[in-house]
Each structure stands twice: as structure tokens, then as C-alpha cells.
């Protein structure tokens, strides 16, 4: 386990190094002056700019510039947004929790829909149910996410008027900002309309979360199906059968457990797809998250925001990746072994 931890940590360190290097070099790739792109000070005078480039060590070597950039990131200073002139670290701290909330709920939704369906398909392999589930998986995987979002808005928000179509909570509710995670903030607040606010927020998250969840759910169906079929083909299942266990017993006691462990590994990999879908869905549903903010930054040519947004979002994805790897390794001793060529 120690060696595994060490390997993962070195991978993490290396990745962060590359990501920060990429993010730093973007300020040179983007059009305009590197110092303005880095700091976001679009209205600065000549003297202020000179002072800034002193602070950012712009006249020194590339390596020392990068070092100063890293130091500032660790102090939580990512410059100010070119569009709003507010500190980017504050904006990200406000927006990232909304995205995390949305993506985690979608992930849970996708897993609770996809994994059981995949298991059912594998258990009834080569029968009608298997085919139905598989065709659902292929169609669900092929639907463009923005189109699905618009359709659900048309049906559930406009024709049926059941669910709201924009934002994450009705403006009537005033929730004090504590953690940034809306649901936790609502529960922490001591307003008398706490539960109304909670249900309202819940109604707001259903549509975007299900839009995001559809495509990953279909991927989970396939992964769960192949994991289950793999497990069912092993010799310990055969041994259990010869012991005289019924099919239900075999599946509940042996197959599901072992197949579930295999699934954990894929969650980290699927997460980056999920974030992509979340970015598009945030635009459609006007969700106050980091994806919509990033896409708006492109319209506004807010290079400082794009640069830091990339860094934060991809580190977030990578951290989730590493965490799932660790969970997988703690649950499954086989994965801790050093595999060559992996």
C-alpha cells in the first residue's frame, strides 16, 4: 500500500506540475500582453504595469517567472478577472461548489441508474431484457446533451410546468453564503422557510442533473454489464454453483460485490466526461457554476479567467481521479500490486 501511495503521489505531483506549466504558458499563447493576461489588469497605467511586471518577475528568466506564478497560486492569488475586475479566486470559490454539487448529484444518479441496469442485462445475457437495455444504452449515448436539455425544458418546464428551467434556487429565498454548497447552506441557515427552500433547490437540480446523468449512465450500463459477465464467468461462481447455492444467492452474495468493486475504478475515468456535459448543461440551465463562467469568459475574452479556470477544473478532475484510485486500492488488494506496463 505504501508503494502504491507513493506512486500515486508522484503521479499527482507530476500532473500538477504539467498542468500549472500549461496554465502559465497560456498567458504567452493568448493574444495580448503576457503581464496583462496573467494579472487581468486591463486598465492599468504604464507605471502600474511596470510595478506589476516587477512583482511577477517578468524581466527574469522563464523559470523564475513560473516560480513566482506558482508562489502566487499557493497564496490564492490568481489575478483579477478582465471582465468583472473581481479577484478570480473569490469568483471560483463562489462558483466551484455549485458545479461540484451538480456533478456529484448527477454522478450518483447515473450510477444508481446505470449499474443496476447493467447488472440486470448481464444476468439476463442474450435475452430480450439484455437487448432492450443495450439499445437504450446506445440511444442514450448518442443523444446530444444540449438537445436533450432543451427538450426536457420544453416538456417539463413549459408544457407541464412542473419543474423550473433556470438557476439553482428561486430568488425569493435568501440563503447566507457559508460553504458555497447550496444544500448544506440551506440546512445550516436558521430561516423559517428552510424546508421550502430545500425543496425548491431540489426541484431546480432535478432537470440539469438528469440531463447530465443520461450519457454517463449509459456508459455505466455497459461497464457494469461487462464487469458482471466477467465475474459470472469466474471459477468461484462455478464453485458456488456446485455447492448448490441458488442463482439469487450467488448474485447477491458473490457476484454483485465483486462486480461493484470493478466499477469504482471507472468512476474516476467517467468523471471528466461528466464535467464536460456539466459545462454545456450549465449554459442551458443558467446554472451559476464554473462551466458557464468559463464559456462566458471566452465570449468576453477574459484570458485570466480562462487560464485559472482550466487549472482549477482540471485539478479538480484529477483529484477525483486519484481519490477513486485510492478507494479502489483500499477495497481491492489485487490492484495494489505493481503492474508493469500500466
Amino acid at each position, binding site marked *: 500500500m505504501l508503494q502504491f501511495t507513493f506512486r500515486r503521489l508522484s503521479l499527482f505531483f507530476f500532473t500538477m506540475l*504539467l498542468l500549472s506549466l500549461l496554465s502559465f504558458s497560456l498567458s504567452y499563447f*493568448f493574444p495580448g500582453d503576457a503581464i496583462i493576461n496573467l494579472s487581468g489588469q486591463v486598465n492599468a497605467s504604464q507605471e502600474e504595469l511596470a510595478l506589476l511586471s516587477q512583482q511577477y518577475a517578468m524581466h527574469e528568466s522563464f523559470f523564475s517567472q513560473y516560480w513566482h506564478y506558482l508562489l502566487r497560486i499557493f497564496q490564492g492569488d490568481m489575478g483579477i478577472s478582465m471582465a468583472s475586475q473581481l479577484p478570480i479566486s473569490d469568483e471560483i470559490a463562489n462558483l466551484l461548489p455549485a458545479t461540484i454539487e451538480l456533478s456529484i448529484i448527477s454522478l450518483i444518479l447515473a450510477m444508481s441508474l446505470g449499474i443496476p441496469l447493467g447488472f440486470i442485462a448481464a444476468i439476463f445475457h442474450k435475452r430480450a431484457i439484455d437487448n432492450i437495455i443495450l439499445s437504450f444504452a446506445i440511444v442514450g449515448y448518442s443523444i*446530444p*446533451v444540449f438537445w436533450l436539455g432543451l427538450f426536457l425544458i420544453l416538456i417539463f418546464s413549459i408544457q407541464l410546468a412542473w419543474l423550473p428551467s433556470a438557476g439553482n434556487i428561486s430568488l425569493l429565498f435568501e440563503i447566507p453564503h457559508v460553504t458555497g454548497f447550496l444544500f448544506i447552506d440551506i440546512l445550516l441557515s436558521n430561516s423559517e422557510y428552510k424546508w421550502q427552500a430545500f425543496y425548491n433547490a431540489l426541484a431546480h437540480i432535478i432537470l440539469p442533473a438528469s440531463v447530465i446523468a443520461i450519457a454517463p449512465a449509459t456508459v455505466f450500463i455497459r461497464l457494469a454489464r461487462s464487469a458482471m459477465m466477467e465475474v459470472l464467468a469466474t471459477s468461484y461462481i462455478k464453485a458456488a454453483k456446485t455447492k448448490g447455492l441458488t442463482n439469487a444467492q450467488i448474485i447477491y452474495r458473490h457476484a454483485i460485490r465483486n462486480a461493484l468493486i470493478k466499477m469504482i475504478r471507472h468512476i474516476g475515468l467517467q468523471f471528466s466526461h461528466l464535467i464536460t456535459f456539466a459545462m454545456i448543461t450549465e449554459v442551458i440551465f443558467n446554472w451559476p457554476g464554473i462551466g458557464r463562467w468559463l*464559456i462566458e469568459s*471566452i465570449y468576453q*475574452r477574459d484570458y485570466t479567467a480562462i487560464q485559472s479556470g482550466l487549472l482549477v477544473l482540471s485539478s479538480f*478532475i484529477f483529484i477525483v481521479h486519484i481519490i477513486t484510485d485510492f478507494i479502489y486500492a483500499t477495497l481491492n488488494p489485487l490492484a495494489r500490486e505493481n503492474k508493469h506496463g500500466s
Partner: protein
Amino acid sequence: MARDKIYIEEEFPSPLRQLWSNFKQTNVAMLGFSGYLFLVVLAIFSPLLAPHSSVDSNLNLLLLPPAWDAQGDVSYLLGTDSLGRDMLSRLMHGASLTFGLSFVVVIISLVVGVLLGSLSALTKGVKSSIFNHFLDVILSIPTLLLAIIIVAILGPSLSNTLWAIVLSMIPQFIHITHNAIKEEFNKDYVLASRLDGADSLRILRYSVFPNIIEKIITQATLAQSAAILDIAALGFLGLGAQSPLPEWGAMLFNGLDLFYIAPWTVYLPGLAILFSVLSTNLVGEGLRHAIQQRKES
């Protein structure tokens, strides 16, 4: 011309031919394949087949509903959009933009990815390890995010998004080629030709590539369905194809303001995207199924 069989000899079809004969047997896969061929024909010949111009507006015929509607006109089969442009012609032209360009994107990234992947599979030690770590980093960034960054550097336009998607697709081809080649190199038949004195490049060319090409093609179909969705998504976000171009995602975005008055301007491009992604995925699934079947037999 029919070939006469003079000698009784056993014929061993090449891996690709075996793949095709397995692929043919699945009906759903053939259905997807015919849809795919239909799109290819549409993408190539759309300027000849389209009944009207895809960019000329006709101010007398704004927002004409599709022909099955009571107010529809049969010469504008799928209706017109807010500038009086014929939807059918725009969708047909869009096939060459969204579907055709996704094909080009995949071919470019396939060639680059396979070359780099073979190079990385032949190198060993630190160089290969650094390269793999680097790939892992790029693979952990979502393709759309990567594309957005590249569009931010180059500015929004259709050609820039294409380069962006090419760049974001290359790593997965490198990855799959690298792993496939590594796997093949451990097999006995490679050892046999190595004992015959073949060098690595020769083994790669004559022994390994014919055996891994099916894997690469399968990956290419999956990559193409992702590329269609990416091109359309970037068009929808206004970062890809710009307004007059009938790219399906951009068309969908243009129709958004009139969603309630003229829903066909939104659902038709969406259906077109769905159809093309679905047929590409069915072909990919069929290929994967055929490979699996051949391995089992």
C-alpha cells in the same frame, strides 16, 4: 473475373476480411452501416442533391412549417427557418460540415496518433515513462475543455475548432496504438519473425499492423461519434461554426430564440445529430462485436 481453383488450397482471409464477414451477420450493425453510407453520400453530394441554396434567404417564406403541417409547402419539405432558408437544404449541407468534417478530424488524429503511438511503443525506459505520464495528464483534461482553451487562443471559427478537436483526439489514438502494439509484441509470432532476423520496424509493418488495424478502426468510429458531438456542441456554444454556415449545432442554436414558435428549427438539427451519432455508434458496436466473436471462435 472468377478465379478458377486448380489446387485444393485453404484460404486464410486477412483480419480485415474476417472482420467484415463477421460484421455482416449482425442486422443492427448493417442498419447502422447503411445509415453511415447514406450520410457519406449526403456529405459528398449535398451541393448536387439539395433542392435550394443553404445560405440564400427568402423573405417571402419566413418560418414555413414542414410539409406535413397544414400550412406547409411541399417544395420546402422540412420548412424554412427565421430567414426563409430551406431547412432540408441546410440539413443536407450540414451533413458535409458536421458529419464530413468529423470524418476528416478523425482521419488526421488517427494518422498522427498511430505514428506517435508506434514511436512510443518502440521506445523504452525513462523516455517512454515521461511520455506516458504526459499522455495521462492530457487524457485527464476533458476534450471539450481542451477544445475551449484552443479556441480561446485562436479565436472562435469552424477551422479552429477542428484543429482543437484533432489535438484533443490524438492522445486516445496514441494510447490505444501504444497498448495494442505492446500487447502484440509479447506474442509468439512476433518472436518468430524476430528470430528470422526482422528488425522492429519490419515487424511493425508486416506483422503487427495487420493485426491491430481492427482495434484502431473500432476506436476511430467511437472517436468519430465523439467528434460529431464535439463539433455540434462547440457550434451550439457559439465557439465553432459561425452563423450563416449550416452546421447542425449552430443551426440548433440559431433556432433557439424561436423554439416555441418554430420548434422544427430546433428538433430537426437535433434529430440529424442523433441520427449520425447513432449510426456511427452502431457501426462501432458492430465492429467491436465482430472482433469479440472472432476471438472467441
